[in-house]
């Protein structure tokens, strides 16, 4: 192979610099960190972080691996489980930037389980168990979102070890699992230079970044004293109901400094940035009010928040647990915990979303995941062990669907109770194709 001169190499690199960010932004499963290795084709496995249930199987939290390879003899079947022993309130998981490690967190006792999903994607194995998250972080508890950055992860904690309320922090760990830093969410007495003190509740939930604008957003939920308490008790307790977040914090991504706190009432949860390099906005869903909000950069370059839609019947809140945006920024999927229904919104005008499709998936759904091409969707049922419905209609499942642009058609369903697994929660995709075409001494 002919070798380029250095000057030609630099010219090529400089030209590629112009393309690099936009190429990355289009190349993930639509809602993951833009720094993360993407699966552009067929996902092969779905990893479901699952809560243990009394009387079900080994009653312990576990990572469940489901085969989703078309044509596989075990398609739509559970092919592996890794139990971590005990019930810790398994909740969310996230991938490292090299996609070799799946970090899985627990909300009750702040454990972090680091699974190796590269050595054999079909059989994740525990690489490291972090037990000192609270001590290392200076009192942050309840690790929630794990968001990949180069060489490390950002973790949103959801509570604290002092009052067990919603004030919490962003935490950084290296990919090896070593603690790096804690960044507390702004509060009126600790704004750290940010504006919007009147809205700064200090609460946390999700984090998502837009590198092109050097900005990241965090949302706001509630703390341990609410999420580890029976939902009906919380919701009938006026004092407890005041302890839900109502803010979005805008941060300088590179310096991890908060810039501005925006008022977003009704507990905004998941954040989803648009992917088009000319779209400087993100959506979030207010779970207590069933409203969709837009966080956008205005003409003066300031970040603003605006309510843009009420989804479902306002008298019967859907309590959305997750949203997904399609890779062309044209549509958004919305999952309602309260009514078990997924809805599709046309968001081509982000200031005027319109619901165009709805389908009831089960008695309750929470998480949704879509393939990069948008043709396959997966839904799971559980929100929290003490907030899931427990009546005669209660069910726990993973259900998969094909989407042809008009209709969701179910391809398989796994009953997580009948299978002795537990409450199905967060999903992440895996694939041999990410690792299998090379040899390396590192494996």
């Amino acid at each position: 192979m002919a070798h380029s001169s250095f000057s030609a190499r630099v010219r090529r690199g400089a030209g590629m610099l112009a393309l690099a960010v936009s190429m990355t932004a289009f190349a993930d499963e639509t809602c993951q960190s833009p720094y993360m290795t993407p699966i552009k084709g067929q996902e092969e496995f779905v990893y479901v972080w699952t809560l243990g249930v009394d009387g079900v199987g080994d009653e312990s939290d576990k990572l469940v691996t489901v085969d989703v390879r078309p044509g596989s003899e075990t398609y739509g079947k559970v092919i592996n489980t890794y139990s971590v022993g005990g019930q810790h309130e398994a909740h969310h998981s996230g991938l490292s930037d090299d996609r070799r490690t799946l970090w899985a967190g627990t909300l009750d006792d702040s454990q972090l389980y680091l699974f190796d999903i590269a050595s054999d994607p079909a059989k994740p194995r525990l690489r490291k168990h972090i037990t000192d998250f609270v001590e290392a972080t200076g009192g942050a508890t309840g690790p929630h979102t794990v968001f990949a950055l180069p060489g490390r992860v950002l973790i949103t904690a959801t509570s604290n070890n002092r009052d067990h309320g919603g004030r919490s922090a962003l935490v950084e760990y290296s990919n090896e699992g070593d603690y790096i830093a804690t960044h507390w969410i702004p509060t009126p007495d600790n704004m750290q230079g940010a504006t919007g003190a009147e809205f700064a509740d200090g609460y946390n939930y999700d984090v998502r970044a837009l590198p092109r604008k050097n900005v990241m957003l965090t949302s706001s939920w509630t703390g341990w004293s609410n999420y580890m308490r029976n939902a009906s008790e919380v919701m009938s307790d006026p004092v407890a109901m005041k302890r839900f977040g109502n803010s979005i914090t805008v941060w300088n991504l590179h310096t991890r400094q908060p810039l501005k706190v925006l008022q977003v009432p009704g507990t905004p949860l998941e954040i989803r940035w648009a992917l088009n390099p000319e779209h400087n906005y993100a959506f979030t869903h207010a779970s207590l009010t069933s409203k969709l909000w837009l966080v956008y950069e205005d003409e003066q370059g300031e970040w603003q928040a605006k309510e843009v839609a009420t989804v479902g019947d306002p008298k019967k809140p859907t309590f959305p647990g997750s949203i997904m945006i399609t890779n062309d920024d044209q549509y958004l999927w919305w999952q309602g915990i309260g009514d078990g229904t997924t809805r599709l919104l046309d968001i081509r005008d982000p200031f005027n979303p319109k619901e165009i499709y709805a389908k009831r998936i089960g008695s309750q759904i929470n998480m949704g995941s879509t393939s990069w091409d948008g043709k396959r969707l997966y839904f799971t049922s559980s929100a929290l062990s003490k907030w899931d419905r427990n009546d005669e209609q209660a069910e726990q499942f993973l259900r998969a669907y094909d989407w042809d642009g008009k209709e969701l058609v179910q391809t398989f369903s796994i009953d997580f109770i009948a299978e002795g697994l537990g409450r199905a929660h967060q999903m992440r995709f895996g694939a041999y194709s990410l690792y299998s075409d090379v040899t390396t001494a590192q494996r």
Partner: protein
Amino acid sequence: MNRTDRTPWAVAGVALLVALGLKLQTTGPSPAPRRAAPAIVEESNAAAHEPAHAHAAMMPAAGLDLSRTAEFDFDPPVAGTYRLPVIRPAADGAVLDSAGSARTLHELYAGRIVLLSFIYTRCTDANGCPLATAVLYRIFGASQADAELAANLRLVSLSFDPEHDTPEVMAGYRDGAGPQWADGAEWLDLTTASEAELQPILNDYDQLARRRVDDAGRPTDVFGHQLRAYLIDRQQRIRNIYGLGFMDPRLLVADVQTLLAEERGAAH
């Protein structure tokens, strides 16, 4: 299933509408949780994990274009106004310089702030080595106009293809020595003697680099790799890691200058 409430979401509807009408507050004592609360742990001094830093903002490096681009559509942070926490120690390793002399990484890091980039010279990956090299080149250009950068920064390109990238090849990577490299930060082009000496370095830096195989399973000349660059301070600790989306020369230079500001602050 746990025998708790039947339909919490149905009960919630009216309660929520009423609750949201109340003035929201975020302080005050929590109700007693049903489960035993986690043990109270005294807040550790998280700040102890971070080195002291100077608060003095620094002027941007002379010769560096600070303009926004479509790819990095923001003003760069002011150096010295933020912290760079320690990520981990920068590992040592046995390398060869472009003259073929056996050296160590720590020996070559000594006395300077280092920007380390893993590359291989045959890389044609649009988002890989050419991009990393272009960014280092821009930083080098800035250092030619900024004496402080030139005096304190060292750029290091380290190949992960020792089979092809011998010291002679690395010596020619930037078209050899010449006046075009004068007056700027020192730039070293390194390789290793063998895979055996390379792999511990890659492992320690968590640098993914894997030789691809063809359809018949035969090794090719192409490496799958993840774009990474590392900022290493004078105490030989990694202070930042850059990847695709972060490879903005303005950010890297601001970080170098932030470390310089930190050193000044510590000195006082």
